[in-house]
């Protein structure tokens, strides 16, 4: 989802937004806070997922604010954009440290509230399946919005030719704000969805950015369908490497990244984006 946010924003606004990792981290921290408070206030545990997603969506309200900060560098060199968005990563890290402290944050005992699913000798937490399903639904939803709605057509037109879209009367500022907010929501909701099973630390933003970039490089900048496949590829390869030869866990991903950069620099799915 973080990679999808990165792709969406780059595809339309041509901004390499490193802060997408910070949105993921903020979503996770905020998710812990809202769910903990809601449970303390008497929320039935099975409803925590609703609160978690609502929290992630609400946090996407920071999207338009950040987009406003980025406006001056839309037409500048990419290096300016990267420096500015990296500065945002550091600022968000300090804001997080100020609000939530520097210790790792974990959510209480809600991970197994939906139980476990046993298939033979394999046990899978139902929550993991919900997250996978949510990821699939969001991907389908994104596909529907981008290909079947008026907003999606405008977004695609803007991504293809900004000047022409503007000449045809598209309010670019509004489109940019909406697209950026959508990209932010993908990050914040993604972080919120993952946190019940894991922990979040201050440096998670940078880690997520690195993985998201690996996905984007493999799939090709600007390709949403490619992102979906690229993310699956990275996840599966990592899992296979851990099971077969743990030493290759990190190496295997970057070998593919290097191979793609050398053999097909535009990415495996670059054509699909066009």
């Amino acid at each position, binding site marked *: 989802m973080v990679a999808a946010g990165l792709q969406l924003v780059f595809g339309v606004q041509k901004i390499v937004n490193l802060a997408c990792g910070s949105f993921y981290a903020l979503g996770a921290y905020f998710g812990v806070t809202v769910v903990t408070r809601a449970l303390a206030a008497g929320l039935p545990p099975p409803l925590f997922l609703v609160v978690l997603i609502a929290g992630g969506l609400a946090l996407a309200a920071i999207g338009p604010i950040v987009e406003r900060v980025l406006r001056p560098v839309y037409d500048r060199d990419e290096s300016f954009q990267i420096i500015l968005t990296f500065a945002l990563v550091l600022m968000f*890290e300090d804001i997080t*440290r100020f609000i939530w*402290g*520097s*210790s*790792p944050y*974990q959510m209480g*005992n809600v*991970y*197994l509230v939906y139980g*476990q699913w*046993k298939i033979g*000798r*394999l*046990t*899978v*937490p139902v*929550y*993991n399946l919900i997250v996978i399903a949510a990821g699939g639904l969001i991907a389908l939803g994104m596909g529907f919005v981008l290909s079947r709605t008026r907003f999606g057509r405008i977004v695609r037109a803007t991504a293809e030719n900004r000047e022409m879209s503007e000449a045809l009367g598209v309010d670019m500022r509004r489109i940019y704000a909406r697209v950026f907010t959508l990209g932010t929501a993908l990050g914040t909701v993604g972080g919120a969805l*993952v946190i019940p*099973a*894991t*922990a*979040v*630390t*201050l*440096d*998670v933003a940078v880690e997520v950015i690195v993985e998201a970039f690996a996905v984007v490089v493999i799939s090709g900048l600007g390709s949403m369908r490619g992102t979906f496949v690229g993310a699956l590829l990275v996840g599966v390869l*990592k*899992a296979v490497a*851990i*099971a077969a030869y*743990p*030493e290759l*866990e*990190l190496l295997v991903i970057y070998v593919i990244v290097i191979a793609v950069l050398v053999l097909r620099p535009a990415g495996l799915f670059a054509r699909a984006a066009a």
Partner: protein
Amino acid sequence: MATTRRQFLELVGGAAALATARLDTAPAFAQATPVRMGVLTIKSGIGAQVGEAGLRSAQWTTDRINKAGGILGRKLELVVEEESTPKDTVERFRKLALQNKVDVITGVISTGVSLAIGPVAEELKMLWISWDGTTQKGVEETMPNPRYSFRSTDNECEAVMASIVVAKNWKGKFKTVAGINPDYSYGRDNWQAFLWIMEKYGNPVTPVSDLWPKLGTTDFTAHVAALQQAKPDLIFSSHWAGDASVLMKQAHAAGLVGNTKFVFVVAGGVHETLKKSFTPEGMFLGYNTIYFDYADASPLQKQFVKEYNDRYKEWPVFECERAYLVTSAYKAAVEKAAKAIGGKWPTTDQVIDALEGLELESLGGKARYRKDHIPECNFYGGFTTYKNRFDFVTIDPVVKMTGPEVQKPSGVGLKDWIQSWKV
């Protein structure tokens, strides 16, 4: 106008009086100047919890020392800097030594960082007493006889303790083992020590999987799947930070907790995160050099645990003991050295000489700095239980082992030492 002889004598006399007055007041000025102790600790990321605990304890110890009159009448003052990457931490070490001009530098938790700090301490002739960063292999290779660096206990102490307890208590109850350890010297040394000790105790085991996630991993889903596939009788882990509880939570969710035995050699350092809801009873849990709920604890430990909990609403962990030991050892060494030279403030070299062989009471009991600059401390661990007043697991009964029982003697390799045991 020419100066008369009387005027000249008055001038010389005045100057002499002034100079004498300066000489007289100089020691008093030195006494009033605080002793500055640099502290390097982790403040962010997966190790922040442990680093913060150490810093709190260093501050508690400093306040205690100052309330009792300071060190030879001088107040102790902490100058805190962040421990992060080896490169950046070395820069901060240099800053503390050269710019802040501290008298001693303490702290450092990461083994990787201490490997970088050790040579710099020697180069700057700066006394550095490590809390927890153990630099065994690196220092043995690069600095066999450090002068200015005082290290922490050996990397493998907690693994040695856990392995001995497990070998004795679970003999014959497991055959296949899997290791999931952080991918750096600490994790690798511990896993190796465990396998050697199993062999020594005539407990032949077959490793079916050894996984090396990087320190700070927060998603173990794929690792847990690999462990499920390997189906080991026992899982050995030396994760020591917030990642330990994430691993346990995800292992529990995947149904790995049940028939499998778990050995977490040092996760007691983040014990409050090991909730009963996902941590099994009966697993081995190492607490390192202090166990917060130890019934036979010294009055010092009981006072510390109470005050720590009153103030922070948390229960202390081993990094608290490390920070207390180091801060108190510096004070004791300065006082010991001063006594030997008639009460004057000792030089760094005299403090180092006093530290070698120094015995003192730490939070976990009696401790001692060996001549090779490595401390000996008590280690605590045991099998987990839910029978307590907390929402996290504790241990019962508590096993306590002394430094010489879990740490190899000076100048002997770990494998040779293990093989020399009579079991």
